[in-house]
């Protein structure tokens, strides 16, 4: 360093070099960027504090939650109110992911490794467009167009697979039904059931998972793919031995992003799902499920006092839920990260 300094000093005028301290632009930029970073932290803290603070009345008044949400039920409590919505939220999100992940991976692999270059670009663009469609539009489309179309499929599933799968159902604290039979029960039209909501949710999370997975797959080192090809791998074997192992943590991260969206998605669920508050695994039955987010949206306009506090408490639960899922995702990504 000292030699270059000396060289600079001799080649440029001494006065520029001697001007000590940091340049104004540098300090301004560093203040701005630190400030932006802090802002994120502050916003998150503000949300957390608001949620906790406002739920206190409901937490303290757990014996006498005598608002209209309690519906004058005898054993009404914070837990008995929130638990079915947690159940509904997780079930809907899980179903959506189960449908979206395989399709997303297929599309992502097609774009990154199978499609001709021009087609891949067009397809990628369309996926991004799909991500930009507002959820209220999905809600309209799902509720008005898709739901009636699904009716024959549901009837068929109900008739043929009505007893599948038949392992014992289990919901902590509350019991639940003796058997998990997803397609059992008594579906009635219009099919504004959890299955319909999950399908629309799947369409909504598909672009995120696809876009992130595609990026990861495209980053597979060329040299690794060529190594497999030179050993006589077919295209599928290249994907299996090189691309998927390389992209595994990225796919997990992508799925968790999708899960985050599915958990918090409000509008589409609100517009499609006929709500109910049970622990039913019968996803074809109407009026059995509701998600936390859609419940808050549908009730908050009429709520006040302890009811409002109760709704905010469910919001806190959702906040914590997404927090935990993000933490798990980060842990998985860190653990399975490719060392190179």
């Amino acid at each position, binding site marked *: 360093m000292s030699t270059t300094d000396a060289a600079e000093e001799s080649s440029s005028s001494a006065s520029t070099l001697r001007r000590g301290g940091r340049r104004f632009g540098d300090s301004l930029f560093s203040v701005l960027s630190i400030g932006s970073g802090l802002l994120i932290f502050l916003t998150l803290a503000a949300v957390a504090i608001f949620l906790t603070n406002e739920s206190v009345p409901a937490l303290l008044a757990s014996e006498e939650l005598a608002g209209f949400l309690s519906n004058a039920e005898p054993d009404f409590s914070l837990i008995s109110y929130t638990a079915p919505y947690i159940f509904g939220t997780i079930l809907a999100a899980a179903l959506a992911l189960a449908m979206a992940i395989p399709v997303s991976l297929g599309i992502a692999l097609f774009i990154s490794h199978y499609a001709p270059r021009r087609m891949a670009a067009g397809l990628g663009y369309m996926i991004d467009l799909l991500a930009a469609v507002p959820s209220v539009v999905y809600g309209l489309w799902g509720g008005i167009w898709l739901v009636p179309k699904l009716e024959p499929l549901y009837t068929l599933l109900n008739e043929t697979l009505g007893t599948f799968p038949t392992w014992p159902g289990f919901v902590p604290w509350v019991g639940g039904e003796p058997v998990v039979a997803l397609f059992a029960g008594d579906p009635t039209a219009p099919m504004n059931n959890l299955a319909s909501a999950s399908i629309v949710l799947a369409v909504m999370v598909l672009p995120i998972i696809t876009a992130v997975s595609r990026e990861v797959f495209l980053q597979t*080192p060329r040299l690794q793919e060529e190594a497999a090809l030179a*050993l006589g791998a077919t295209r599928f074997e290249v994907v299996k031995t090189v691309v998927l192992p390389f992209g595994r943590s990225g796919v997990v991260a992508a799925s968790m992003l999708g899960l985050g969206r599915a958990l918090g998605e409000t509008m589409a669920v609100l517009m499609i799902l006929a709500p109910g508050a049970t622990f039913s695994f019968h996803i074809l039955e109407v009026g059995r499920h509701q998600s936390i987010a859609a419940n808050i949206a549908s009730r908050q306009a009429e709520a006040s006092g302890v009811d409002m506090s109760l709704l905010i408490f469910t919001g806190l639960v959702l906040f914590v839920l997404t927090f935990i899922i993000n933490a798990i995702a980060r842990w998985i990504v860190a653990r399975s990260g490719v060392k190179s």
Partner: protein
Amino acid sequence: MAAPQPINVDSLNIYYGDFLAVEDVTVQIEPRSVTALIGPSGCGKSTFLRTLNRMHEVIPGAYAEGTVEIDGENIYHPKVDPVNVRRRVGMVFQKANPFPTMSIRDNVLAGVKLNNRRISKKDADELVETSLKGANLWEEVKDRLDKPGMGLSGGQQQRLCIARTIAVRPEVVLMDEPCSALDPISTLAIEDLIHELKESYTIVIVTHNMQQASRVSDRTGFFNIAGTGKPGHLIEFDDTQKMFTNPENKQTEDYISGRFG
């Protein structure tokens, strides 16, 4: 196995899209020997090497015209599956590229498992040992076969890649500047290995290092281009001894004596 036959390349033109990269190569590569390809950067020697196992065409738009006969069979015949060609003609790359998610053992077995062959644990153990011994790596890694291949040094990784290549028992091994990222000691280890490998395999090696070409090869081919954007040509192909002492062509002489390149 029948007596090994030479690789016959006949009027091969190699393209990247519309661009003719290498023009009209006709050459016969002797079996069970080392053939070195030398020439300045961009002359098409690596491109030519990659046509010998149809790896050239994995680049979008790239293709080759002409015939390459290996074991009497034209690998560019329309009915030939490039996947099968690559199982017979192995390749070692410029940078060592073991599979990062696999152990040393799994790296050696990767090709065998790809080719859909079921292999018993005992056979697999034997194959791992013979392949690693064949690549002069066994003594260094025998106690840590389950450790990741990426944990080895650069030279060891390159020998692991050679072990992986010979584990599928190819007829030909192509090497694309296999020592260019290695230190002199590791380079020497690979060169010694090449000497041993030519007992069982036909080896074609691209190298930027003319000393290396003269050390390891029996025959040498010199590629050159007339200028940027012009196709590369195989200028001269002869015994290494003759190429480095008394080349026929002026361009070869200039390149070898260090007047350009």
